[in-house]
């Protein structure tokens, strides 16, 4: 019974704070509203016995949102929302499309006869997950690792404005790189 109550409270909280993301003026508040939405959703994941994945989502999302808020403040014209303004296009269309999507999805949710399983749930889902990604689903783990590595390289290449010629000179013959910020390793 208490699970029902917690689930519906969290579901309502997640959707409400999700809506708040696009309603508030302050970018910091928008980002932390999104974080609240993630935290509520993570609680519903915890409710279905997925302790590891629920806490992992919590951990990831806090880190992501703090990074996100930095970029929000950096790129938005009006980060603190002191001068309210709207930056939207085709709002009516977007509203219609998303309402339509919600209607269709809801119809599917209630019309389809979802399979249910009476099979016993594993005692330790995290262990089952570990066995899967290191066994039958190892390809997933390999691809995820490669994708993350490719992302690291790509994002650094895209985001940095200094290349190796800036650091090591036009002939790449400088012995120590010329960086605007000296690091701590003493190069």
């Amino acid at each position, binding site marked *: 019974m208490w699970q029902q109550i917690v689930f519906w409270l969290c579901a309502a909280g997640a959707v409400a704070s999700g809506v708040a993301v696009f309603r508030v003026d302050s970018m910091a508040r928008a980002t932390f509203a999104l974080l609240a939405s993630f935290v509520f959703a993570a609680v519903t994941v915890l409710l279905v016995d997925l302790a*590891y994945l629920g806490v992992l989502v919590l951990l990831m999302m*806090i880190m992501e949102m*703090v990074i996100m808020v930095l970029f929000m403040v950096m790129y938005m014209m009006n980060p603190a929302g*002191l001068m309210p303004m709207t930056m939207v296009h085709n709002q009516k269309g977007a509203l219609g499309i998303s309402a339509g999507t919600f209607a269709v999805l809801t119809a599917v949710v209630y019309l389809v006869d979802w399979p249910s399983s009476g099979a016993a749930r594993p005692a330790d889902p*995290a262990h089952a997950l570990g066995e899967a990604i290191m066994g039958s689903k190892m390809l997933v783990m390999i691809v995820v690792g490669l994708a993350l590595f490719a992302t690291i390289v790509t994002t650094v290449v895209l985001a940095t404005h200094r290349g190796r010629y800036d650091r090591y000179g036009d002939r790449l013959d400088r012995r120590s790189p010329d960086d605007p910020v000296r690091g701590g390793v003493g190069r």
Partner: protein
Amino acid sequence: MVEQAPWWSALLLPVVLAAFAVAAAMFGSVLTARTAGTAPGVAAAAPLRSAAGLLVRQRRSTLAADALLWRAAGVVLLLAGVLASLVTPLGRWSVGDLPVGVVWFNAMEVVAWAAVWLAGWGGNSAFGLSGGYRFVAQGVCYELPHMFALTTAAIGAGSLRVADIVAAQQQLWFVVWMPVAFAVFLLTVAAMAFWPPFDHPLGLDVAGGAASELSGVDRLVFLAGRWALLVSGSGMAVALFLGGGSGPLLPGWLWSVLKTAAVLAALVWAGRRLPTVRMERFAEVAWLVLIPATLVQALIVSIVVVAR
């Protein structure tokens, strides 16, 4: 071994953390008095006096502050410090022995990122915000070595449950065969609690950084949250690397208390002896030295676990 304590122990947890924090603050204050050559007796009460002073002082307000997020910052930081200790055992008892205790501990610590940034942002002050940015920059440096240190202990025990990790150290404490992970863990706990030498986010060069505009009760709650993080980090260091409550003669809870106090005292003492590390220096050290070191440590531990 470690077992779930009854529910009311959750109410005792903040009390225990506060006792550790006050004792450590007094210790630091006495050390200061000894250096300055003033009476240690008076200095021991100084933290309590300044806490009482903050409690009665009126809040300062700033123009166009984001009051909601600003007030939330201190409360969230304190809450995170207390919740992180939920899984830390004291001798035989643990308030909440979660099956994913190590991940839970890490998730609660990361909350500090959001809390410190919010404390800097909320006050609508340039110094405060740059302090908040400094902490996030420091965060992306300490977090990965910290995670790998936690992972190493979990690999050694083959479990994410803190009780299992303590039980796996019956014969040999993890600090003996994971010294690098232990050292990195202590270092990153100090960085996480922006404790000196990693107190650049509260640096004097930016007029107190993230806490510059905090005053009165807000400041007290924020600083208490910082202490809670430091104490919970020390407690976790004991559980993960120093055998938890195991030891001869004395009961388990007393060993836990003694070891935690020793780690905490070492952190407080080291913080007073070392100069502040700027985050851009720490960044390169963290990524080029600490992460490879912890990875090699994790690899060695994994090989030992598989081979044994």
